[in-house]
């Protein structure tokens, strides 16, 4: 599975292609298959995303998409050492999702 990620131009925030636009939440990501390059080029040209690129994704036991590599999982969540600054500050188990 291939999923598409990049950064918001203005904030630098990590974003994920959800099929129609860019989401902050990796669980919204969709499999882009062979379309990654075309979508990335179109979206970057329209300035809706900064430096997009495709990564490998997997589906976890709950059926949710999960980046295959730990670096991308940390991008998706936020720094594991500052749970208060992650996208899930109220979830004490959020860090386990990364490992």
């Amino acid at each position: 599975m291939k999923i598409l990620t990049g950064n918001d131009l203005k904030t630098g925030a990590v974003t994920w292609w959800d099929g129609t636009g860019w989401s902050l939440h990796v669980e919204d990501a969709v499999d882009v298959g062979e379309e990654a390059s075309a979508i990335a080029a179109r979206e970057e040209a329209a300035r809706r995303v900064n430096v997009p690129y495709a990564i490998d994704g997997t589906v976890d036991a709950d059926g949710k998409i999960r980046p295959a590599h730990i670096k991308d999982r940390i991008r998706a969540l936020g720094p594991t050492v500052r749970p208060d600054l992650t996208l899930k500050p109220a979830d004490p188990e959020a860090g386990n999702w990364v490992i």
Partner: protein
Amino acid sequence: MYRYDQYDQAMVDTRVAEFRDQTKRRLEGKLSEDQFKPLRLQNGLYLQLHAYMLRVAVPYGTLNAAQMHALADIAEKYDRGYGHFTTRQNIQYNWIKLADAPDILADLAKVEMHAIQTSGNCIRNISSDQYAGAAADELIDPRPYAELLRQWSSFHPEFLALPRKFKICVIASETDRAAMKLHDIGIRMVRNDAGEIGCAFYVGGGMGRTPMIAPLIRDFVPLEQLITYSEACLRVYNRYGRRDNKYKARIKILVHELGADEYARQVEEEFQHLLGQGIEPPIAELERIKAYFQDPPFEADAPDDLDLSDPAFAAWVKNNTHAHKQAGYVSATISLKPVGGIPGDASVAQMHLMAELAKEYSFDECRVTHAQNIVLPHVKKADLFALWQKLEESGLGSPNLDTIEDIIACPGLDYCSLANARSIPVAQKISERFAASGKSSALGELKLKISGCINACGHHHAGHIGILGVDRKGKENYQLLLGGSEGADTSLGKITGPGFDEDGIVQAVETAADVYLREKQEGERFLDTYRRIGMEPFKEALYG
């Protein structure tokens, strides 16, 4: 400390205006990311794992209170309430919005700071001894010369597109507290047989994927030829340094491949040529700079004794203060390494407090250390207890300087797009483990340094115990190194053997520490014992 003149201020203000226009054009879509990237990097703005990251230069680590307050204000107004002090004596902000970056640079310019040349293949921030101008064992204050080098290297048209980045360190003590020999150029102020003060040049050191200790290239360069000789060193590198392979582009590779003698010969040839060109700044300029580094008005009869009846205060004094050249004073280190904390991070409140303490107790001056701590360089011994109490109240009183809890750690995979493994959680677990076991004080001086990748921002090669995080089939793995040192006895650590997972590396560090406690002889540090008994007893304990 140095203050900008109208030229310094105009240069920085002009750069802010220029970057404001470039940012506007990027946000309007008139510049692509490929076009904009080199422009933002020239102003210290990276795109990191979670957001834009801004690296701000702190020249030779020196700040006044207004500057530290401004750094705190930036963290509060534009970031998420904290900053990260780095092993290059700089500060980084991790959550910057692109549209805010020009305003941040403008705020920095108001307190005579900037982020210029904190990225890219240019001469980076000049580093120095955190006790410069204060240490009892210092020959002279190296900072005027560091400042001269800063001015020479800022916007130097010939050296803005070097083969790779370039780091210079200037010290003036026999004891190296700045990892001087692990820089591209390390300069030590020395006195020759005739009693004259000059500079010994060590060229071609560095860490990263190919760690090397800089060889001595010239044992004495007269002070009035400092810039000319530096220029000669850079010119030979700029001419012959490799540009075809970024992993072989640092000057250490050139010096290694040419051989130190041949490199020195070529530098000498260029030096002789340059001596006729009159490029050395006039003495009047050096004197102008020196005037900013006069000693503060020390009390000549400040009492030199200390009441150490409070054991907690005594422990802090023992570990966190350093002998001062002026009787009745010390340099005091504020540890940014609380047990379980993030090495080098400081909150807005802590930065404001450190600024206030610098103003109240240290003649309006503080220093960032390469070990990610903050120094108040000139504290009257009579004020030390009051200072310590304020630090204790705010969680900044950890008495752990140069102990196993005073860990250098790069941001690692929690923040850095280059990292392969997380550094900070490992540092947190190790400090918690040793604080809980009570072994820290028994271990004494033990410098532990962690890098999350081979680029070695966490100086793992130079740790008595070093840890290198690697990616092993998509999982974090940690290699253990022993025997590194950054001091006068600079050495590079050696890998013990197969790596460990996150919990395994914490246990491995304790195992190595236990070998030391078992084998040490009277007066030996961990490093001394390792050098005496070698790697085998450690390997035996680690791997059986």
